[in-house]
């Protein structure tokens, strides 16, 4: 793929991902799904997935923050994949350069939400004035703002990025690049710890331990562990449902099944 086409596509990708995330959610702005396409565009699939996987694991638990503005990990992923493919710096260093871009993007998200308030005010004004076509059209400006959230950082990166980053990285001592690679290995812990906080870890600590033992000692594949997790989920579901039935049965004596559970 010619460089120019690559540049255009790599700018468009995170723009689309943001709009997609707020709407149809096919790619849904996750590092691995966006990284998959970034890898196809840049042509280095293997490294792209490694970078995307690291950001994906970091971003676990961020979804739990709900409506608030969170780092744009998908943008960070695209930035890192682009730098990795264009400059040949290692995946760990690419991640460390991409991460602050994603964090700075929080501010752009706040800005978009503020600007959208004005768009909304304008749209409601058109409603009162019975200009129904304009009332609808003006809302598309919001979509444009969302796209700009990724457009601005990506254009700066593509125009000034690779050469500048390469010069800076050549000048950086080895222990720093090593340190950034070490950080790249440790950073998924952020996502893991955030998940543990938002999920009922205390109530279901046994499932966490089972997962750990299966991975650390038995070295089972992630799919195998997921299937066992699914089995445990079915068990938990059935137990809760039969509890409910048992409770309502003792009240009304209409149900007799599910009594053999000793809870």
């Amino acid at each position, binding site marked *: 793929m010619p460089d120019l086409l690559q540049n255009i596509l790599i700018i468009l990708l995170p723009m689309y991902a943001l709009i997609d995330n707020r709407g149809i959610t096919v790619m849904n702005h996750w590092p691995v799904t966006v990284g998959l396409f970034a890898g196809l565009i840049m042509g280095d699939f293997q490294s792209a997935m490694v970078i995307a996987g690291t950001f994906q694991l970091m971003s676990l638990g961020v979804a739990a923050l709900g409506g608030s503005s969170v780092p744009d990990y998908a943008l960070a992923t695209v930035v890192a994949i682009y730098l990795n493919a264009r400059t040949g710096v290692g995946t760990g260093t690419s991640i460390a350069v991409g991460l602050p871009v994603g964090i700075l993007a929080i501010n752009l998200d706040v800005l978009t939400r503020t600007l959208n308030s004005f768009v909304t005010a304008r*749209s409601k004004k058109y409603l009162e004035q019975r200009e129904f076509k304009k009332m609808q059209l003006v809302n598309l400006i919001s979509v444009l703002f969302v796209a700009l959230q990724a457009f601005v950082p990506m254009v700066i990166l593509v125009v000034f990025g690779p050469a500048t980053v390469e010069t800076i990285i050549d000048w950086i001592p080895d222990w720093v690049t090593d340190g950034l690679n*070490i950080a790249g290995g440790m950073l998924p812990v952020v996502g893991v710890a955030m998940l543990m906080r938002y999920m009922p870890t205390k109530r279901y600590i046994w499932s966490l331990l089972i997962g750990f033992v299966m991975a650390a000692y038995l070295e089972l594949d992630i799919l195998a562990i997921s299937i066992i997790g699914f089995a445990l989920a079915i068990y938990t579901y059935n137990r809760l449902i039969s509890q409910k039935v048992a409770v309502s049965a003792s009240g009304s004596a209409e149900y007799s099944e599910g009594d053999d559970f000793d809870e």
Partner: protein
Amino acid sequence: MNNEHKSQTNSSQVNKLSKKELRRAAWRWTVIGSNNINYGTLQGTGYAWALANTLRKVYPNDDDYVEAMNVEYEYFNITPYMAPLVIGTDVAMQEQQGTESLEAVRSIKTSLMGPLSGIGDSLLWVLYPTIMGSISGYMALDGNPLGAIAWIVLNLLLIWFRLKLFDLGYKSGARLITDLSDRLTAITEGASVMGLTVVGSLIATVVEVHTPLEFTFGEVTLGLQEEVFDQILPALLPVILTGVVYYLMEKRKWGFLKIIFAIIILSLVGSYFGILGVES
């Protein structure tokens, strides 16, 4: 404003809609959704945008349309996946009773937001990306795109799911949630168990902490990592790191940005003094 409209109801006309025209509202929500989320009414504008064309069909009269749209512009905040259920209920009510129903529409909208988001946030917004993100992220670390592809396929199924939710809302409206809420709690708990099992495996596999420190006693070299830590517990250092980070976030209320910067500083210091290294 009520009196004025009760006298007008005879003249105000309400059209019935075809299934395609109805579903259009669900599609418009699906495409734009919360793109125009704002600090004033959050998703209110997106909600109004989704219904704009459908309601125009329902109300040929401009005054009725403006009155109805003003209600739709109000504050709205929900897990985006669940919104079509509310939109379906909303359209069904207005199609039957016109502007008479607007007070009820407003209360239905505000009363459904909470419980639907409770279900949607935990199941679709948190647990679904947790499980899929863990699996696909883990696979991606080995350069394997299969998890990511499977995720996209499931996302496509969710589009179908949203249209179904709209139909459900249109047919049975609010009744559904009370009927299902018992079962949904059990589903959420079950999904949490599966999520935590995967999270437990992630601590051992994706969190990498490694020390190259070695002690030499005369002829014998003792690698701290292989001969001490790994013997005590596989993934001992990752477990400690996870515990410390969990403690700092839970008990010390550190934000995740602070944690990220702390980890980068720790890594740089560790690298400089040769305490931490990349596993070879």
